[in-house]
């Protein structure tokens, strides 16, 4: 697989954007309903990233960095290891 799967790229963007929304909300108006809605969205995106990274790459590097909170998806997507084989195509 030469590129990260589309689902991983989408999950990585959602992970990063939802975290940004949470932090901006926290630093500005701190509207609780927004936190309680975006919080689970971010949590889902994080877990999607970890699962998709494990499924789509046999690279230990990609799998380990996918665990990094907030940035894991983006770092896994940008990783240069997307040239190796795919254990189970997503």
């Amino acid at each position: 697989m030469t590129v990260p799967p589309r689902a991983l790229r989408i999950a990585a963007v959602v992970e990063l954007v939802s975290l940004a929304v949470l932090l901006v909300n926290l630093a500005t108006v701190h509207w609780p309903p927004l936190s309680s809605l975006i919080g689970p969205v971010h949590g889902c995106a994080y877990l999607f990233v970890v699962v998709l990274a494990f499924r789509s790459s046999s690279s230990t590097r990609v799998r380990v960095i996918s665990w990094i909170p907030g940035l894991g998806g983006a770092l896994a997507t940008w990783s240069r290891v997307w040239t190796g084989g795919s254990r189970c195509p997503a």
Partner: protein
Amino acid sequence: MTKLLLSVHVLAAVIAIGPVAVAASMFPAALRAATPDQAALRVLHRICRVYAGVGIVVPVFGLATASGLGVLGDAWLLVSIALTAAAAGVLGLLVLPRQRAVLAGVRVEPSRLAAHAGVFNLLWAVVTVLMIVRPGSMTGV
């Protein structure tokens, strides 16, 4: 906001767990055929694999809902969480790998696959009943 979280939780449970329960049960039946249809087996495995991933939404939004309702420490919920974890374990460690093995040409007993699918479905049935009955809860039906 809790109502929205609960709606997402229930919707995700219906959409994600339903197909996995059905496809996981159909897989051994399709395998038992005299000449198993490889395309059908592949589709059933794909349904199980993809919707198992979508199923991540269910516990995440479930925890958020429970947190909003202030019931995170209730016994019925803790038991449900444990059973959900067990169901996820059965799916991720037994059902999906054995289906993958079948597609790779390894011989796997259909009865074993059926048993795993049955355990998965039973665990989810118990969790669903716990979610509705909520033993010990003051707000139940």
